[in-house]
Structures are given as structure tokens and as C-alpha cells.
């Protein structure tokens, strides 16, 4: 191989080929950057619940564009215009990016009925830069104001809004539920207020959009309050059995309740040695 590359003919063909001599070095640099960035993202484990919306500065847009082109463009196109493998992101707004990337759904792990949650691949700063870039491509929902995310609204109103608008897919206790063709509404336990809000205004996957005419920002704040209250209070009656309702309860009584009782009947009728 070394003999081959050192020959003048080979050198000539490389110079006249479609790759520039710097391509190899650049590729290695990008690879290292990407690996290092991913590693940093994983090790950092951004537990930052409240994304501080990045300032829409030219540098952030530039950085976001670079990240986008390195990580998202394969499916969404170099200018977020979409491709046969992924939809256009022009006009989806910063909120979409913060939700999809911030919950680990994007970059998508694999094609399936819907994108699955997984460990987040970027730092919050990178997510913000991506969000600013995608937000700059066209008008769309922006990252919600922190005043709607404090989970300090009217829980009673929120619970009622949740039952009317959300429970048919997400279950009354937010435990999630099945949709058609392998799709599902995920569990809402442990989802950050920002992501809940963003999901409502952007309608990810099969979720409908709940715009501000439909549920006011205060109403969304109330819904978040109700969900967080439920999480905080936990289950007043003891272990919640996954909040799955009568199916979990029925399985429990047959397996553990009746199981224990049958074991005790065996014990009580056992002959003493």
C-alpha cells in the first residue's frame, strides 16, 4: 500500500480526484470532534431542567448550523429543508428542537413506529445552539418562558384540563397508553416542565398541537402543576403498581394475594413430622 501511494501515478490520481488533499485530515478532525462531543454530552448528563434560552446571536446560529449539518443533515437536509428520510424542519421552531433533542428522541436511533426516548446526546448548550439555528430558519414555536414552567399554578384546573385533553392517550395518571400500529403515548412521569410545555405546542410524533387558542399558556402551566403535584405527592395509598389501574391490581391479587393465601393453605394443612 505504501509502495502504491508513493508512486507518482498514484499521487497524480489523488490530486486530480474528487477529494482535496486536506479531506483526510479534516475527516479525522470532524470525527474526533464528534466523538469527543458525544462523549462530553454523555458524561455531562445534563440534568438542567430549565433550558436557558440561548441568545439569538449570529455565533449561536453559526454553531447551531455546524452541529446541525454534522448530526441532523443526513435525514433533514443540509439546510433543514428535509429529505426522503426526514421531514423539513423549517418553521418547526426552537421548541421542537429542544423537545426532540432534549429528550434524546433525536437524533433518532432507528426507524420504527415512532422515535423512542434515549439518553440525551448533546449538552444543553449544544441543544440551545441547534434550537436557535432551526428557529432561525422560519417562524415557529419558541422555547417557553420560564414563568409558565414553575409548576406553581392551579393544580385542580390543570388536572381537569389534563383529563379532558390528555388522559385519553396518556392515561389519567400520566402512565402512558397504546396508540395504533405500535405507536404509543409515553409516560409523563419524570418529564421536565419545559418538555411537557414544548410537547403541547409542537405536537411531536402523533401528538396533536395544543396551541394557545386551545389551551392558554396559563392552562398549560396548570397542567404542568397538576402533573408535578401528582409526582410530588406520589401514591397516598401505598405502592402504586405502575398506576396502570385494574389490570395491575388484578394481576397482583392473582399472583401475590392468592399466591400467598394458597401457600398459607398448604402450610396450614401440612402434616406435622
Amino acid at each position, binding site marked *: 500500500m505504501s509502495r502504491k501511494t508513493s508512486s507518482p501515478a498514484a499521487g497524480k490520481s489523488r490530486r486530480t480526484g474528487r477529494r482535496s488533499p486536506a479531506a483526510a485530515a479534516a475527516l479525522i478532525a470532524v470525527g474526533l470532534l464528534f466523538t469527543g462531543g458525544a462523549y462530553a454530552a454523555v458524561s455531562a448528563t445534563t440534568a438542567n431542567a430549565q433550558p436557558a434560552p440561548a441568545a439569538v446571536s449570529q455565533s449561536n446560529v453559526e454553531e447551531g448550523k455546524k452541529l446541525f449539518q454534522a448530526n441532523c443533515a443526513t435525514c433533514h437536509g443540509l439546510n433543514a429543508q428535509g429529505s426522503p428520510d426526514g421531514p423539513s424542519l423549517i418553521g418547526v421552531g426552537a421548541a421542537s428542537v429542544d423537545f426532540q433533542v432534549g429528550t434524546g428522541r433525536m437524533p433518532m436511533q432507528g426507524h420504527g*413506529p415512532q422515535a423512542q426516548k434515549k439518553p440525551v446526546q448533546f449538552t444543553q448548550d449544544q441543544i440551545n445552539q441547534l434550537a436557535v439555528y432551526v428557529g432561525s430558519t422560519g417562524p415557529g414555536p419558541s422555547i417557553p418562558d420560564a414563568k409558565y414552567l414553575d409548576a406553581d399554578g392551579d*393544580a*385542580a384546573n*390543570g*388536572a*381537569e384540563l389534563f*383529563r*379532558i385533553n390528555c*388522559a*385519553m*392517550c*396518556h*392515561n*389519567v*395518571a400520566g*402512565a*402512558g*397508553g*397504546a*396508540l*395504533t*400500529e*405500535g405507536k*404509543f*403515548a409515553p409516560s409523563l412521569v419524570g418529564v421536565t416542565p419545559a418538555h411537557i410545555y414544548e410537547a403541547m405546542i409542537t405536537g411531536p410524533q402523533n401528538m396533536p398541537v395544543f396551541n394557545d387558542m386551545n389551551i392558554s399558556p396559563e392552562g398549560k402551566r396548570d397542567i404542568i402543576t*397538576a402533573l408535578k*403535584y*401528582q409526582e410530588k405527592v406520589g*401514591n*397516598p*395509598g*401505598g*405502592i*402504586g*403498581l405502575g*398506576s*396502570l*389501574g*385494574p*389490570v395491575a*391490581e*388484578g*394481576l*397482583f*391479587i*392473582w399472583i*401475590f*394475594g*392468592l399466591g*400467598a*393465601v*394458597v401457600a*398459607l*393453605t*398448604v402450610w*396450614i*394443612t401440612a*402434616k406435622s413430622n
Partner: protein
Amino acid sequence: MSTAPAAVAAPAKSSGGFTGKAANYLDERTSISGAVKEFGRKIFPDHWSFLLGEVALYSFVVILLSGTFLTFFFDAAMTHTTYEGSYAPMNGVHMSAAMASTLDISFDIRGGLLMRQVHHWAALLFVASIGLHMLRVFFTGAFRKPREINWVIGFVLFILAMAEGFTGYSLPDDLLSGNGLRIIDGMIKSFPLVGTWISFLLFGGEFPGEDIVGRLYSLHIMILPAMVILFIALHLVFLIVHKHTQYPGPGRTEQNVVGFPILPVYAAKAGGFFFIVFGVIMATATFFQINPIWNYGPYDPSPVSAGTQPDWYIGFADGMLRLAPPHLEFVWLDRTWSFGILLPVIILGLFIVTVLIYPFIEAWVTGDKREHHLLDRPRNAPTRTAIGAAGVTFYAVMWAAASSDLIATHFRVTMEGVIHTLQALLFLGPVIAYFVTKRICLGLQKKDREIALHGYETGRIVRLPGGEYIEVHEQVSDYERWELVSYKDQAPIMLRPNAQGKITGSMRLRAAMSRWFFEDRIAPVTQTELDKSHGDDHH
């Protein structure tokens, strides 16, 4: 120990002490000793599976106790009110008095939440233990003559228990139970002509109305419990009259009952067992939440939550509805006839009636008019065991269908896939279960026969002086052999002309059914075979 006045009062029983005197006092005024003597010497055989009915009885006692507590605080009215209790996410929410009082029981009455959970868990255990008890009775053939009527009484108790459960969990007027009532309303309305009228009668107008909780409450705490108690009493009277069945074994015959007397052994055991069951229920209710109505919220006809299921014992009905295929409507006589709900309801009705009258069907098919106090080992009645397995499979498929959405999310499959698979299994499952079970039973019978005749293989190879190698078989003891050989052989009915010298169609049907029931069978080992096999112990 005896004091002077006692010696004067009852000189013949001077050593009785206080208990003796109290008993004597009672007996002289009530003549109860005759009854105590009769019942106290009643013998009950000891086997764990005979305690399952007792579990049901004790759960019912727990239900009565905890339910009484709940009636003190529950307000069975649908008057509109605004909740102002200590559960913040419901504060200021409009709801019915029933829902508000249930929330009060849960959050503002000392011990109320525990009692609610005790009541609900005990109800689940009540129906579950009845189910398991029925399976025991079915698979051991304990429903045969003279106990057919007691099977019917027990099955009515099962239905009553389901009705108690349904009326009970509908009382809080929460979202989940309201959805359940809506389904019942739909099932009632599915009946042509009369359905709508019955629904209006039940709900006092258009669903949901403002009457249903009060009406269900009357049923739940008066009519249904009274009927349950009545049927339990009948069930137990028949248990005493028939005497308890027992598993076959040495010394056990159709004429005797081998076991312990009620007094003192069984009364002590059963009394202790009551507290054990009570304890299991209390422990479950303490640590595990059930029916969190504060999550569900008040009933409102518009929202339906994902994962809405009934309690487990109504699950089979919900599952059957889910399995019904679409497009079962047609227009006839200028009216729409919809079978999307009616067809599943009819199938459920047929299933329930079949289980109810099974003892009579089997008695007719087998032509068996003997009394049976010795139980069948399930393998010794292969066809019945196979029928039972098919029935259990049918029920289980319906049951699984009720949780089709949870199966889809938890096993990451599509909901359509789950439903279509279960639709196929509803028909194929029982058939497969029937044949597999029957073959397993026959195989076990063959094994029993082999062991009775030749004993166990020991794996010890011995070389005889003549050079022949044999494996030593160890004979089973006489006690063990008894259990293997002591069942009755039953042959298909011979088709013979009746008194008029005719063979009617029903006789032919019965003969065919009987042939199906008994055709494949392994005859029990006879004495002659045993004697012969003992001649050549090794082979």
C-alpha cells in the same frame, strides 16, 4: 376447684369449672348440645385445595366489616357539590356528593383510605378465591351427583360476587367507573327493541342521569349482600348434608370421610385461618394502593382515559367486546341492526350458561347416576379435564383481550397485532388446549399404570448368574399403589332400544357424546394384572 354452691347445683358435674357450668346453663335452656354433638363431630378431610372456598368466605366477612365502616361516611347521592377537602388537585372541582364523600373517606377520615383499600382488595380476593375454588371443584369432578345443585348455587354466588363488585366500584362516581357504567349502558342498549327502554329505566332517563349511584348503592349494600348471604347459607347447608368430598386414598371410600372433626381441630384451624386471610388482606391494603379515584377525577361523559379497564372479574366481558370484529351492522326493516355489542353479549351469555349447567350436561352424557364422594384425579377424567382446560383458555383469551392496550405498550407490539392474535386464539386456543390436555392426561394415566404394575425404574443394572442383565424395578408401596389403581373405569353407553323397542334421535346423540367422552381411556389396573405382574418382578 369447684365451690360449694356449684356442687349443690350440679353434683354430678362437680369438675366442670366455669366453662362447664356455663355450657350446662346454656344447654338446659337451649338444648344446644344435640346440635354441637352433631356438628362438632362432623369430619372434614384435610387438603389445601379444600380451603379455597373458606378463603372466599373469610374475604366476604372482611368485605362486610370494612363495607359497614364505609357506609358510615359514604354519601350515595349525585347532587352537585364542590370539593373542598384536603386533596389539593381536586379543590374547587365540581363533582357529585358520592365522589366528594369518597375523597373525604380517602383523605379526611381517619383510617378511611385503609378501609377503602381493605374493602377493594378483599373484593378482588373474594372473586379470585371463588374462581380458584370453582376450578378445583370442576377439575376434581366434585360437582357430580349429589352436588350438582350446589355447583349451581356456587356459580350463582360467583355471578352475585361479580355484580357486587361492579355495583361497588361504580359507586364513587369517578371517571373510570363512569366509563364502565357507560359500557354497561351500551350493552343494555344493544338489545333490539327493549334495550333503550331498559337503559332509561335503570338510569332514570338519559345516561348518566342523577339516579344511578343511589340505585346501585341500594343493590350493593342491601339486595346483593342479602342474596350472597342467603346463597352462602344454602351452599354450606348442602356442604353439611352431602358431607365433604375427599381425594382417593387408602381407607377412603364412598361411604366414609377421613379427616378431622370440626371440634376441636377444625374449628381451631379454620378460626386461625380466618385471621391469616384477614392479615393477608390487611397487609396488601396497607402497602398497595388500589383504585386511586383522586387520579381519575369526577365522572364526565366526555373524557375516556387510556388504559381504562374494569376490575379483573369483569375483564373477560370487556375483552369479548374488544374482540368483536367491526362492521356487524346491517339495515333491515328500515332499521339499523347492530351486532357489534350484541354478538359479544350473546357469546358471554352462552359461555356463562354452559358453565352453569355443565354438571347436568356431563351427567346426561355419561349416564352416570351413582353418588360420588371420592374425587377424581384430573388425569383420570381426561375428557372433562380437557374440556376444563379449553374453557379456561377461552376465558383467559377474553381476559387478556381486556388488557390488549397494556400488552401492546409493555411488550412493544402493535395493538392491532394483539387483537388479531387474540381473535384467532379465541377459536384456536381452546381446541389446542383440549387436545394437548387430553393427551397429557392419557400419558399420565399410562405412566401410573406402568408404575403400578412394574414399579419405579431404579437405574440399578444387575447381572444374573446366567449372564442376563436386568434393571431392578422398585415396587411401590401398597398405599401408593392404591392411589394409582383405585379409580373406576367408565365405558361409553351402549346404544340399546328403549322399552318401546325404538332408538330415538336423542339416544343416538347421547351415545355419540358418550363415545366422545369415554372413547380414549386407560383402564385401571385390575387385580389379575397386578398378580400376574408380581410373578415377574424384574423385566
